[in-house]
């Protein structure tokens, strides 16, 4: 809980600040957009949190988003593949990708950075290959399917505001992830081996299976994210779709309290991390006096100031506690 305070504080600060600077920020249309974007990024971030907790890293997320996000419309529209088959294939491919990473990292002891960097290169290259560099989309069909990403579920007593569908996916993913991480023995194993893999192995934990599991989870959520992103924007260009998303997802996870050394992290924190990033991006466009092309400078500076303040506050609190 204490770990959550930091990210929650920064999030709240940025949220309130934006609300003060722009009277449009709290309009339901904007909040819906914000929630949808947070949910999409959050799904990726929750997945990568598992990998980070084991002390690994997954750089291939953006390319998996691209592979699945371009692949599903390609299958449906260009290859006239039936919907269930296309979705099944997407799941199988994501699973296979995660399995490949996991096996290479756990069994062959390759460095996660190298394996997933090769993944980053390969899956994008493959996608560009089979799509022939052509933008993929669902066209005007598959309206029903696209509802998965674009629909808004009305709330019982609130007028004019609906929960964007991706948010429901995030809730499901997050609840499952939380239960898995905190309530099952496997979650405990993940946390343990993230801190000291050797000791975990000595305790009779099948550490390689846990590593594989983490990478599979990460690729599966990346695949899910890929489909939802594609359904949301209805257009995916193989050369650029999902570029840098791994960095955003990892950033969200790390902001949310996952240490890249492994062994720590909470799902709630990760979601706030994703929310923070999206509020910041939203702020740039909404607040007049920030020129939009320095967007990145503002985001970077706010995050940096945030973590600096967080750390400084923690230190002061710690010192107080001791001196008493």
């Amino acid at each position, binding site marked *: 809980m204490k770990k959550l305070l930091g990210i929650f504080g920064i999030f709240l600060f940025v949220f309130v600040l934006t609300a003060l600077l722009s009277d449009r920020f709290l309009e339901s249309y904007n909040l819906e957009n914000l929630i949808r974007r947070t949910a999409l990024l959050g799904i990726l971030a929750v997945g990568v949190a598992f990998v980070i907790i084991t002390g690994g890293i997954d750089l291939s997320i953006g390319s998996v988003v691209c592979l699945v996000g371009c692949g599903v419309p390609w299958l449906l529209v260009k290859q006239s593949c039936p919907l269930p088959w296309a979705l099944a294939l997407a799941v199988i491919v994501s699973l296979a990708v995660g399995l490949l990473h996991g096996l290479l990292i756990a069994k062959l002891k390759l460095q996660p950075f190298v394996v997933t960097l090769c993944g980053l290169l390969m899956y994008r290259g493959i996608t560009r290959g089979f799509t022939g560099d052509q933008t993929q989309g669902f066209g005007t069909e598959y309206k029903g399917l696209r509802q998965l990403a674009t629909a808004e579920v009305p709330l019982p007593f609130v007028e004019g505001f609906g929960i964007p569908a991706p948010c429901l996916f995030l809730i499901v993913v997050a609840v499952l992830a939380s239960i898995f991480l905190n309530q099952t023995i496997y979650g405990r194993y993940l946390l343990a081996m993230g801190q000291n893999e050797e000791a975990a192995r000595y305790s009779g934990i099948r550490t390689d299976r846990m590593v594989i599991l983490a990478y599979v989870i990460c690729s599966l959520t990346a695949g899910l994210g890929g489909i939802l992103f594609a359904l949301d924007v209805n*257009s995916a260009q193989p050369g650029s779709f999902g570029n840098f998303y791994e960095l955003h997802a990892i950033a969200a996870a790390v902001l949310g309290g996952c240490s890249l050394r492994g062994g720590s992290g909470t799902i709630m924190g990760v979601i706030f991390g994703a929310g923070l990033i999206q509020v910041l991006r939203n702020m740039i466009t909404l607040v007049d006096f920030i*020129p939009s*092309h320095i967007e990145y400078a503002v985001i970077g500076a706010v995050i940096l100031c945030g973590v600096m303040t967080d750390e400084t506050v923690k230190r002061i609190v710690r010192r107080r506690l001791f001196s008493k």
Partner: protein
Amino acid sequence: GPSDTGDADTGDVDSDRPEIAFVSNGIADFWLIAKRGVEQAGEDLEVDVSFHTPQDTVVHQQQILKDLVTRGVDGISVSPIDPVNQAELLNEIASHTRLITNDSDAPDSNRILFVGIDNYKAGRMCGELVVEALPDGGKVMIFVGRMEQDNARGRRQGLIDELLGREYNPKNFDSPGQVLEGNGYTILGTLTDQFDFPKAKANVEDTLSRHPDIDGLIGLFAYNPPMILEALEQAGKLGAVKVIAFDEDFKTLEGIKQGTVHGTVVQDPYQYGYLSVELLKAIFAGDSSVVPENKYVEVPARHIRQDNVQPFWDDLKSKLGKTAEP
């Protein structure tokens, strides 16, 4: 120094066929149409063609151009990303092989000729569409992938100058951050997305949040108008805000048909590709009559509106063949 490889044969099986390479300035569907043109010309004119798309900008484009020289191709048609500063590179390439430019010109280099249209001019044509759509003026926002690309800058500047009723001057430049007013129009700004589609859509959504009373949304890169349409549809504002487009994305054309997009300005990338190969083949064969006096082979841009969208689309589909599904 570099060895003299330019005039050597390619060493391929078919060594009497010229080998011609086409280099784009990035990855986009626009270039796929050009690629079709290149391939068709290769077939029709019996030329070995290859098509290259740089992924990470000038550095990669330079790398590809030099590697093509190494490979000993007989001619290159390139769309330079930064024509002013790349002049020297282009001169180096031109000293080894036959070099022409397409899409955006590098007039200060030794390229043999340029195939395409002035992006500034095309931008002004886009401005004309905006004026048609919003005759009484109004507030508009511009969406584009990257501002630093030559074509983006030209298009945007042409658009702005047309809207504000300025003189024809491609050398103008307005900073992307500032709000421009004049002639009844307010240009609220220019939002870039670095080719990240969800970001492009988010830009539109945030604009709708920030300026609920906006009158026109202008998408300057091929994928921008479809993203505008997506955002409008989700916001339930389709048709309430004018959309003015650039390029010929199928969703844009569909929108024009249905009246949700006022119109678009199309170049003719297919011709860029086809003509590039045709001209380079002629130059390779020693026929210098194809090079016009002003070294400018114009492939004019066109306005597409609801009245002429269907024939244009049919023509495009027939050119693209089976890759042409939506």
